[in-house]
């Protein structure tokens, strides 16, 4: 059985987990077995709807103490659940919490693990999982040698596959150890789509010359309904907050659309964004290396091009 860990935040199921279910369900079909979900804690969502993504059952450990994430407690509980349910493959989203628990679970189950997988395993001979390495600059195909396997999948690498199934919910009784981690505060940035979950991203670099010029970028993002990001020099100069920094040492993202404005495209920046489905580069320097990695390019002054693009998007939206 393929068991998918369903991550929650503030009692709501995370988007990355829906993709993980779709991936786990496709893998279960390939292996001729079932795909089942595992929810820790109490959530507000209707768990039967997880059937749409391919989970035939959802096992829920109905214990409110699990609503706060603790890597040590959660990994203990997930490993116990996997043993009890007889899972042979475990799937996690490669998001913040998935990264924190999947390797610990693999240790407890004596399972080989591949983190950051980007496609379904090849199970023709053995069990070979392909993952991104060198921050997205290459792939490695890795054979898992153990009977139980653990995989975490890169966000936006497989996509959500929506059908019309309905999942059966089953309560799972597992002893939950008392967490010794105390969460003292949570600060959310209101109304913002987390960058790693965004399907559209507009990003700015030094070419915008200063934080006071960010208005044109924010207008474009608003017109598109996109999240905003920036290059490392921009966050290092405090023009934009650190959490917007995408690149090799910042956040790695894989949105459907990445629009880079005034970013030259240093190799470290490309490493953070080159898994984007479509890349648009706006730069006045025709020699900017980013154009080599782009699908669409506009050679022009951002201060003219960006407002014009925003106007065209609004026009297309309103059908004028």
């Amino acid at each position, binding site marked *: 059985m393929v068991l998918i860990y369903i991550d929650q*935040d503030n009692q709501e199921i*995370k988007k990355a987990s829906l993709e993980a279910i779709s991936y786990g369900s496709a893998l279960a079909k390939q292996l001729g077995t079932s795909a089942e979900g595992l929810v820790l804690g109490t959530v507000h969502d209707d768990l039967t709807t997880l059937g749409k993504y391919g989970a035939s059952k959802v096992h829920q450990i109905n214990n409110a103490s699990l609503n706060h994430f*603790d*890597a*040590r407690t959660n*990994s203990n509980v997930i490993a116990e659940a996997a043993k009890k349910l007889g899972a042979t493959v475990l799937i996690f989203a490669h998001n*913040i919490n998935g*990264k*924190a*628990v*999947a*390797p610990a679970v*693999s*240790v407890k189950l004596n399972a*080989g693990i*591949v*983190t*950051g997988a980007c496609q379904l395993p090849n199970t023709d001979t053995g069990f070979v999982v392909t993952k*991104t*390495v060198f*921050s997205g*600059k290459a*792939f*490695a*195909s*890795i*054979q898992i*040698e153990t009977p139980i396997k653990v995989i975490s999948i890169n966000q936006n690498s497989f996509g959500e596959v929506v059908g019309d199934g309905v999942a059966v919910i089953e309560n799972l009784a597992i002893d939950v150890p008392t967490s010794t*981690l105390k969460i003292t*505060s*949570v*600060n*959310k940035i209101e109304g913002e789509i*987390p960058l*790693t*979950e965004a399907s*559209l991203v507009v990003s700015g670099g030094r070419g915008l010359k200063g934080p006071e010029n960010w208005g044109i970028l924010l207008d474009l993002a608003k017109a*598109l309904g996109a999240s905003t990001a920036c290059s490392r020099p921009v966050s290092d100069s405090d023009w934009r907050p*650190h959490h917007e920094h995408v690149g*090799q*040492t910042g956040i790695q993202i894989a949105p*459907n659309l990445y629009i880079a404005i005034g970013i030259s495209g240093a190799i*470290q920046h490309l490493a953070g964004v080159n898994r984007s*489905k*479509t890349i*648009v580069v706006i730069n006045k320097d025709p020699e900017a290396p980013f*154009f080599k990695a*782009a*699908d*669409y*390019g*506009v*050679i022009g*002054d951002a201060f003219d091009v960006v407002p*014009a*693009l925003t106007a*065209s*998007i609004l*026009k*297309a939206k309103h059908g004028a």
Partner: protein
Amino acid sequence: MKILVCISKTPDTTAKIAFVEGNTKFDETGVQWIINPYDEWYSLVKAIELKEKDPSVIIHLVTVGGADTEPIIRKALALGGDEAIRINNVTNDSLTVAQEISSIAKEGAYDLIFTGKETIDYNSASIGSMLCALLDINFISAATKLDLNGNTISVTREIEGGEEISETNLPAIVSCQKGMAEQRIPNMRGIMAARTKPLKVLEATVTQATTNIKQFSLPPTKSGVKLVDPANMDELVRLLKEEAKVI
């Protein structure tokens, strides 16, 4: 107070990524090696900051790798740290690395274990979490801030769309990222001192890998950029809608 800082050797961020021997091995020709940036800039420097506040803090560095990791560990010692341990095991298997480190960690009875958020070569982000299971102590990942108060740490970690602050008693494992500390450059005194700091080499104890890399590959090259006239943004919107189908 004893801190163990896990150090990994990685290719420089600008290194050309290529493979040899039928795409089974990373091409090391001309590659400059560095301390994994997350290990150096954030976890090691944070440990040094804690020692600067309280000189009784002892910092040990640990790396798992061959003799070719020694220049990296000497550089780390030049930044700070009292002594280093190299476990002579050349492997790409995260569990092997974590098991080797866990036996050092058990023996050394460390209060705090720092790792980087991930390495920039294999991007596994696994060692901290594996140590959590192997040592059965608390683990906080993707940390951007840490305050030490006696036997308790308060740690800020990144979560999707914000941050979370939590507290735990020591011992604990923390994986560090941007925000934790600022990059430093070793000074001459540090470089001189590093030459005589102890670097202990231990033989490998873990031999059974749970995973094996079969093959590397490079992403397909883009078919080439399609240039759009800057005066015709309607055309770009049309392409994004009808050709790329992303908006």
